[in-house]
Each structure stands twice: as structure tokens, then as C-alpha cells.
């Protein structure tokens, strides 16, 4: 028997390594785990509300059951809020078809007079409603802005970010919620594509 030349194991290792790499990256469904996301059994229902959007239509959170909702409490006078908004615009654009809805709750005292020009200037592509003290109260007394809730497809709060969030934490949280528990979404007409976008 010929002795194994040292280049052979190296070549085998190389083939396996390259194969594993290609296998992993060709998969469009690799799982993202966001450290901050609560386990399902620890999530509490997100309180429902009825608030008006820019067209005067009443928006209920319950309208979004089956969707992953990024609920952002913000204000035009809040610098950290303004920093996050472009991230949310991008998430809405990229993940809407997969079942994400970003919903902004403005806490501006002057309401649409301040908010409307800002939405136009920033080209905000998601729905915004004007919040009130009652809504802040039912969400635990939201006092610091921004405060961002990620709500799963069953309407439960999976994570709360108080203050300026880490962008990757938000993106990973959204991704994890989009990937998990698709049953509620499958029961509805707006079924997200099953082949998930690689990240």
C-alpha cells in the first residue's frame, strides 16, 4: 500500500470546507437568532389601539395580525428617533413582502402640523399615526423616545428597545420573527414568500 501523501488529506479537507461553505451560502433559509427576542411563552399580547393616520383613517394594531410589526414611538423633535427612521424605511421596503409592517406612532403634541412635513421630507414609506397619552400608557408608560416594539405574527411583544437601538439588533429581531411561526401568516391572504431572502 502506498503511503498517503500529505497533500491528499489537505485536498480532502479543502473540498469539504468549500462544499460546506457553498452549501450554507446557497441556502436561502439560514436561521437568524436575535439575542434580545423573548421566547414565545414569555411574550405578552401587544395592547390594541385605535389611532388616526394621515388620511384620517382609524388604524388598529389588531389590523396587523399575521404580520410582524415594528411599532416605533417617536417624535419629530427627537434626534435619536430621526436617526432610526431611515433604517425603518429600508426595512419596510425590503421586508414588506415577507410580512413586515412598520408602524410609527408620533408623540408630537402639535400632531400632523409637525409630522406631515417631516414624513414628506424623509419620504417615509410606512404608516404613521398620531399617538396620545392613553396609547403611551397601555404600552407601559412610554416616556423615552424612541421606543420600539417588535411584535410577532400573533400580536405578542417579542422585544422592546428603549432609546436608540443597535441597527443590527433590530434587523436580526425582525428577521427572526419573519422566519418563525409562519402559521398565522399562512392563514391569511398576504402569505409571505416561503423562499426567504438571504441576508
Amino acid at each position, binding site marked *: 500500500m502506498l503511503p498517503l501523501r500529505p497533500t491528499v488529506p489537505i485536498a480532502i479537507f479543502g473540498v469539504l470546507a468549500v462544499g460546506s461553505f457553498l452549501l450554507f451560502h446557497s441556502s436561502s433559509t439560514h436561521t437568524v437568532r436575535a439575542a434580545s427576542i423573548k421566547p414565545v411563552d414569555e411574550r405578552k399580547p401587544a395592547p390594541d389601539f385605535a389611532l388616526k393616520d394621515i388620511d384620517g383613517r382609524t388604524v388598529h394594531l389588531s389590523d396587523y395580525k399575521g404580520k410582524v410589526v415594528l411599532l416605533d414611538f417617536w417624535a419629530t423633535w427627537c434626534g435619536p428617533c430621526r436617526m432610526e427612521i431611515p433604517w425603518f424605511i429600508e426595512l419596510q421596503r425590503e421586508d414588506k413582502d415577507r410580512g413586515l409592517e412598520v408602524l410609527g406612532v408620533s408623540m408630537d403634541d402639535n400632531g400632523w402640523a409637525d409630522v406631515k412635513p417631516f414624513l414628506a421630507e424623509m419620504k417615509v414609506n410606512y404608516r404613521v399615526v398620531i399617538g396620545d397619552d392613553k396609547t403611551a400608557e397601555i404600552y407601559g408608560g412610554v*416616556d423615552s423616545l424612541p421606543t420600539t416594539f417588535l411584535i410577532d405574527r400573533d400580536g405578542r411583544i417579542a422585544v422592546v428597545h428603549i432609546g436608540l437601538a443597535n441597527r443590527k439588533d433590530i434587523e436580526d429581531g425582525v428577521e427572526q420573527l419573519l422566519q418563525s411561526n409562519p402559521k398565522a401568516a399562512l392563514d391569511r391572504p398576504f402569505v409571505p414568500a416561503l423562499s426567504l431572502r438571504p441576508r
Partner: protein
Amino acid sequence: MCLPFLFAQGSGHLTVGTIQKVSGKRNEAVEAKIPVSIDPGFHVNSDKPSEDYLIPLKVKWTSTGALEVGELRFPKPASLNMAGEEKPLSVFEGSFDIVARFKVAADAPAGPGSAAGKLSYQACNAKMCFPPKTVDISVPYQVN
């Protein structure tokens, strides 16, 4: 330095200390110092914020009795660079005085009184902001 703040009032990251009594004769100018303290790590927008959308620190008199309102002098603001902001923010931090000038009215009756007003502000730290707040302020005075 700390004593005025023992009797201070505030409602979230800013405290207004006790304003010392001012006294003067008719037609005289008087100055009241409004001692303000911001919690460490926090800031409030100055009286002239760097952006239109920011809420300034303001003092508005609601009743001044025998005093006629003069100018307000704010301290020099600090420039604060914040992530995501195009230009530095114009802010107040730490402890400082706002100086309120008055003139004792020509027909002021001799004796004590007080001027009342409201100080409004909006506070933030590096990560979050808090809703605008208003604190009642009162300047005790004595017309000699």
C-alpha cells in the same frame, strides 16, 4: 451651591432651584437669577437650538405684579456632537443661571410680591429624548 436645589422643583432631568428675592425702588432695574441644574449625562436644547425642529429652553412670564419684564440672559451654550446629526447641537448641560431682568414699575406699591412664569424645556441624553416639560417658576420681590 446645593442649597437652592434643596427647595427645587423639576419634572424630569432638569431642576429649577429657589430664586432669591430681588428688591428695588420704583423705576429701578433688578435682576433675578434662575438657578437651573441638568442631570449628569443629560442636556436640554439651548434657547437657540441648532435646528428648527428642536424645542428650545424658554422662560415665559405669566404675571409679574409690580415688575415690568426685561430681557432674559442665557448662558453660552455648549456644542454637542451627536451621532446622526449633521451639525453640533446647541445645548445646556450641568448647572447654570438664567438671568431675568425687570424694572420696578413707576407706580408700584411698596411691599412684597412675586412674579410667576413657566420654564419649558426638552431633555435628551445620548440615546433617547424625553417629552417637553414645563416647570412653574416664581420670583419673589420687594418694592422699597
